[in-house]
């Protein structure tokens, strides 16, 4: 009896498997974004209560980091989804979403770096002027 790879893993089974993995990875991304947002909202409220604007900025930075991590998961799901996209319309939509997520990832990373520089500049003591 001949056993071929196609018999062992038919297209429908492969499609189901990849679809499950896509949902799993995308759910991980959504959970990361959700947890980051909830934690940030709680910390934002605490910073508002203390009227601490520096703490407010650093919480925003941590939320941006969570968003970037969630975006990485969603981009991974997009890459997986390309394996089972049957039509050009779906591939076009996928390309648009992947482009948006990549762009947003780039923008967020730039903002995080800028914000980190600002926080470092505020927290590090300035050198004393020479006598």
């Amino acid at each position, binding site marked *: 009896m001949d056993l071929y790879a196609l018999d062992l893993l038919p297209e429908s089974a492969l499609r189901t498997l990849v679809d499950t993995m896509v949902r799993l990875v995308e759910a991980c991304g959504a959970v990361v974004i959700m947890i980051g947002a909830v934690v940030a909202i709680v910390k934002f409220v605490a910073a508002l209560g203390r009227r601490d604007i520096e703490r407010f900025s650093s919480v925003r930075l941590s939320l941006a980091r969570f968003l970037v991590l969630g975006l990485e998961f969603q981009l991974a799901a997009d890459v997986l989804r390309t394996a089972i996209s049957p039509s050009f319309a779906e591939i076009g939509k996928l390309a648009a979403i992947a482009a*948006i997520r990549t762009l947003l990832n780039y923008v967020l990373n730039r903002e995080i770096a800028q914000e980190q520089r600002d926080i470092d500049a505020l927290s590090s003591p300035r050198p004393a002027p020479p006598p």
Partner: protein
Amino acid sequence: MSVVVNASWCLAIAGIMLGLCALLVFRQPIPALRVMIELFTAAGLLRLSVDLSWAAILGVVVLIAVRRLVTRSLVTDLTRSAP
């Protein structure tokens, strides 16, 4: 799916509330605007993970554009008008 959509609405409402509270407490528009846009972005990303329609994609594109444009123009204006 509806859980994620509801969660994204909650994040958007929290963004508006926190932005207004930050504006009232700190009396500075830039931190208030930034926190609001950050939570809107989180809401848009959550919605995009379950709703792959062109309207959702367009919404996130508009959000990124507004995010860049408004923050940059506001920072420029306030830096210029500062004594």
